[in-house]
């Protein structure tokens, strides 16, 4: 099934914000990756508003309107709104569909009145529980697929997901610093589940004539990254999380091999690697997602983005207006600066500034810096003979890059963790089936509920 064996770009220097090899057009005169960066605003409803369909629809109506109004007020040319489903929107497919339809009507109104370009991403919630049910045939899957359909029918232009295959293994192993299980849970099982899910998502998107967007390793690599946390946190070593990110890239690539077209999901911090390999436009989030979580690559992660996002901001009042309005403003001015740099022929200067701001702040920012993302992507593509081989190659390359750059300062502890992680990776079997056999035996025993049949094994 794997098929990306070469890079979309000849070098990392070619990659730049606003331009992708394969731009995507949809929505209301909205093109992503065609030489212009747009904001993607992700509003999140207040707790309690999800109690009824009526109250949730009203919440979304207000949030979306506040965002579109601020975009016009400040002269922003266009915006994408992400409807990142709270559980209730996917559990009740008509809720997700009706909110997409309502958002479309609002965007059409602003397009008609002001010419504001716009589009909608619907990100359906993956509520499958891999350690408790058959994730290839369960109610949660049925509801998710139904909600993809209602969302597409309702007005979503881009269908996306944050799928969770392999999470029962990766959760167990991330907190035990077990790279074998991380490679198995994300690189092998996660990829196999992506293959299963994205075949279905692409079919639905094609049926409704909308764009299959992308996926993210939020449920796994972001778990490692968030647990690694800031400079003083002691939950997960940062070097371990950075290697996990490279494995996450191998898994996220599967969506695009199955036919997803992008723009990718904003919280996929592996996206610079994905763009280097595929040429698909990417959405990223950095300092602008401080409303949702702290970030050690706040500027750097914008360096090659095509959509610039805020992750999720809960609806509240601020002095400057409501949060969707305020974050639309922040995102809008950020992309105005990027677009100005493009217009003035200074895009690569701005890219260099964004990268140098954070490249050596943390091993994670180091790995997703465009030049390193490109090298990790190269290792991945060159070893694309199986999900296992490519994920392992990406992980080893990420680790070697961190260890090999003297400017990437590491504590003794972090260095030792990384050296051990690399030794472990290099000791694993050459053949994917041998690795699967080894891991299946090991984690069946350690993790109650792990069912290889969930992954076609």
């Amino acid at each position: 099934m794997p098929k990306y064996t070469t890079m979309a770009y000849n070098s990392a220097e070619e990659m730049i914000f606003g331009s992708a090899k394969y731009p995507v057009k949809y929505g209301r005169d909205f093109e992503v990756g065609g030489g212009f960066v747009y904001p993607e605003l992700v509003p999140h409803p207040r707790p309690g508003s999800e109690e009824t369909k009526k109250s949730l629809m009203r919440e979304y109506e207000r949030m979306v309107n506040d965002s579109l109004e601020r975009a016009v007020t400040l002269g922003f040319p266009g915006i994408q709104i992400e409807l990142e489903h709270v559980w209730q929107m996917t559990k009740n497919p008509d809720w997700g569909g009706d909110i997409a339809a309502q958002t479309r009507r609002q965007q059409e109104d602003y397009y008609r009145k002001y010419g504001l370009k716009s589009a909608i991403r619907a990100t359906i919630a993956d509520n499958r529980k891999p350690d408790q049910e058959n994730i290839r045939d369960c109610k949660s899957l049925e509801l998710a697929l139904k909600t993809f359909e209602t969302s597409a029918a309702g007005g979503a232009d881009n269908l996306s997901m944050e799928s969770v295959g392999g999470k029962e293994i990766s959760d167990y192993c991330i907190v035990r610093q077990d790279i074998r299980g991380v490679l198995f849970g994300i690189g092998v099982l996660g990829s196999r589940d992506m293959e299963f899910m994205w075949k279905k998502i692409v079919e639905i998107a094609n049926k409704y004539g909308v764009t299959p967007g992308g996926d993210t390793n939020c449920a796994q690599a972001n778990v490692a990254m968030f647990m690694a946390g800031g400079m003083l946190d002691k939950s997960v070593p940062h070097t371990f999380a950075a290697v996990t990110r490279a494995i996450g890239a191998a898994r996220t690539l599967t969506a695009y091999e199955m036919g997803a077209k992008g723009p990718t999901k904003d919280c996929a911090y592996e996206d610079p690697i994905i763009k280097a390999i595929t040429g698909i436009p990417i959405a990223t989030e950095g300092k602008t997602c401080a409303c949702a979580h702290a970030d050690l690559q706040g500027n750097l992660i914008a360096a090659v983005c095509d959509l610039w996002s805020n992750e999720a901001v809960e609806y509240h009042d601020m002095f400057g207006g409501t949060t969707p309005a305020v974050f639309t403003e922040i995102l809008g001015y950020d992309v105005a600066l990027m677009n100005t740099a493009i217009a003035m022929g200074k895009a690569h200067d701005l890219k260099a500034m964004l990268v140098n701001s954070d490249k050596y702040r943390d091993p994670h920012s180091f790995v997703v810096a465009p030049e390193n993302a490109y090298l990790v992507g190269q290792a991945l593509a060159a070893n694309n003979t199986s999900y296992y081989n490519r994920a392992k190659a990406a992980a080893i390359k990420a680790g070697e890059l961190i260890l090999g750059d003297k400017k990437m300062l590491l504590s003794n502890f972090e260095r030792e963790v990384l050296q051990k992680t690399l030794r472990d990776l290099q000791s694993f079997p050459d053949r994917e089936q041998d690795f699967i056999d080894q891991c299946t035996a090991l984690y069946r025993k350690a993790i109650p509920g792990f069912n290889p049949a969930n992954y076609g094994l």
Partner: protein
Amino acid sequence: MVTATLDNVFVRYDLKKEAAEKKVAAGRDDLLQKVLTAVVDGEEENIAAVVNEALTVHDPLTVIREGLVKGMAEVSRLWDEGVYFLPQTIISSDTMLAGVDICEKKMGRPMDKKGTVVTHTAEGDIHDLGQKIVNALLRANGYEVIDLGKDVPVDDVVNAVKQYKPALVTGTALMTTTMTAFRKIANRLVHDGFEIPFIGGGGAVSLEYVTSFDLGIWGKDASQAPDMASDAVSGANWQKLREKYNG
């Protein structure tokens, strides 16, 4: 005057705070020392051998108290002092519990627990890693954990509290739109006369929200769980816990 250079755009505070060298407390004798060290070093594959060796001389309770529990206490200290990261603590916890299993089999009964805690992840939420960490830390500290798992309906949590009569109940949620189940659980418990501390934490769960209803105490971090359980078992009510941890 500070002039910007590429070297002072940020400060690596983590490197300034490089952890102190690990020093491990001494066990009562060589055999117990081996058990203690195996726990501290997280040698899960070796724990059976050293525990069985210790059991040739010591009774199971002594091996638990003087080897396994003492080792875990060392691990807690190393984590508190910033020497250990969470993975080392979790692996040591796995190791300790594997050793306890062996001792319990030898005793023919479970070791006495300090108390019972019911844990769950909110209905609609499948993000249960925080709960799993809480479970591991509570078990390693000698508590009986009734693990209800993830995506747990309100009724199931209330029924579990009635059935097990725990000292504490915990709820984990990543999303603000799933944490709303916490209030429903608390209201039901109050209505039915079960005024026990209810710790809510995880992801976007805030102090403001959890302390907006009776019983609620906000858990900032999973590492607080053993101390909170200890306070609850010692008789502290939810108001006292809220004052201590959220005051």
